[in-house]
């Protein structure tokens, strides 16, 4: 067996590096779970219907907080499954880029929710949730297929409408956003980008 000259060996290493980088980028490109998004949308529609029936603001809030926890679990489960199917672990694979972009705005939203709910400003919450979730999807999806940041922008737009429009629209806008946008975009992502 002949020894490979240094140049060949260097080029082989360089090729392997290139392959690895490209695979990582391509993976994070499509790591966002489409079917998981659709499931989150369906639960949000149900939550909107239940929340609309509640007699008090605090019970309305409890319904949506339960939905948030449920959606979070669904999203984590679906992301993990999609990552595994592509042969990655959730926090080691390319999906971590999406998750790490997603987390800071969501955390900000959770803290603001606690502060605003305590001071009784429940009416601004729908706008705040839509806006910050949209921001989270835009930052998380910065490296993903274009449809992901587009979905985030649509959420931010609904958030702006909710914040500036009449407070009575809040619950409907939540249904349109967390329900409608998730189902619609989730369907497209699932069809085009592997589940």
């Amino acid at each position: 067996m002949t020894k490979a000259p240094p140049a060949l060996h260097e080029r082989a290493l360089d090729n392997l590096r290139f392959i690895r980088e490209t695979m990582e980028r391509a993976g994070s490109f499509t790591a966002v779970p489409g079917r998981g998004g659709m499931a989150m949308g369906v639960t949000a529609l149900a939550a909107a219907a239940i929340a609309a029936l509640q007699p008090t603001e605090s019970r309305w809030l409890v319904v949506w907080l339960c939905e948030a926890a449920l959606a979070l679990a669904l999203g984590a489960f679906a992301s993990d499954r999609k990552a595994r199917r592509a042969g990655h672990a959730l926090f080691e694979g390319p999906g971590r880029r999406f998750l790490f972009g997603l987390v800071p705005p969501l955390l900000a939203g959770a803290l603001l929710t606690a502060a605003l709910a305590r001071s009784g400003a429940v009416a601004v919450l729908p706008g705040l949730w839509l806006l910050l979730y949209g921001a989270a999807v835009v930052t998380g999806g910065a490296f993903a297929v274009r449809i992901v940041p587009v979905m985030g922008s649509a959420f931010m737009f609904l958030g702006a409408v909710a914040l500036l429009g009449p407070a009575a629209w809040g619950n409907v806008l939540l249904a349109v956003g967390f329900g409608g946008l998730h189902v619609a975009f989730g369907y497209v992502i699932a069809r085009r980008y592997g589940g």
Partner: protein
Amino acid sequence: MAGKARRATLQEGRETRPTGFPNITSPGSLDRLIHERLRLGIVSALASGGPLAFSDLKKLLSTTDGNLSVHARKLEEAGYVACTKSFEGRTPRTEYKLTPSGRRAFEKYLDHMEALVHAMRKGS
């Protein structure tokens, strides 16, 4: 100069036999079809990201329409990638997918690169 280099890689592609190289350290046995940088990029992206649309692949590899379609066609002719064209409303959509033979060729290429690195480590 860029044109010359491009022509050279295209000719390399034309001469290539797509599969099989018995001796890993002989340069002649390298799968030149995959070896070219952009084609290697296409195959790597499809191996990791699943089926991808032409426009997504273009963005991912930061290349031009012309370049991507030339190299994607080479891979398609070799049976390494499959291409499906469809319409979404009025806009045409081209999607690429790695074929089983493309995946095998990619794995073989990876083995080949690893063997080269390994041979060097052992030799030094």
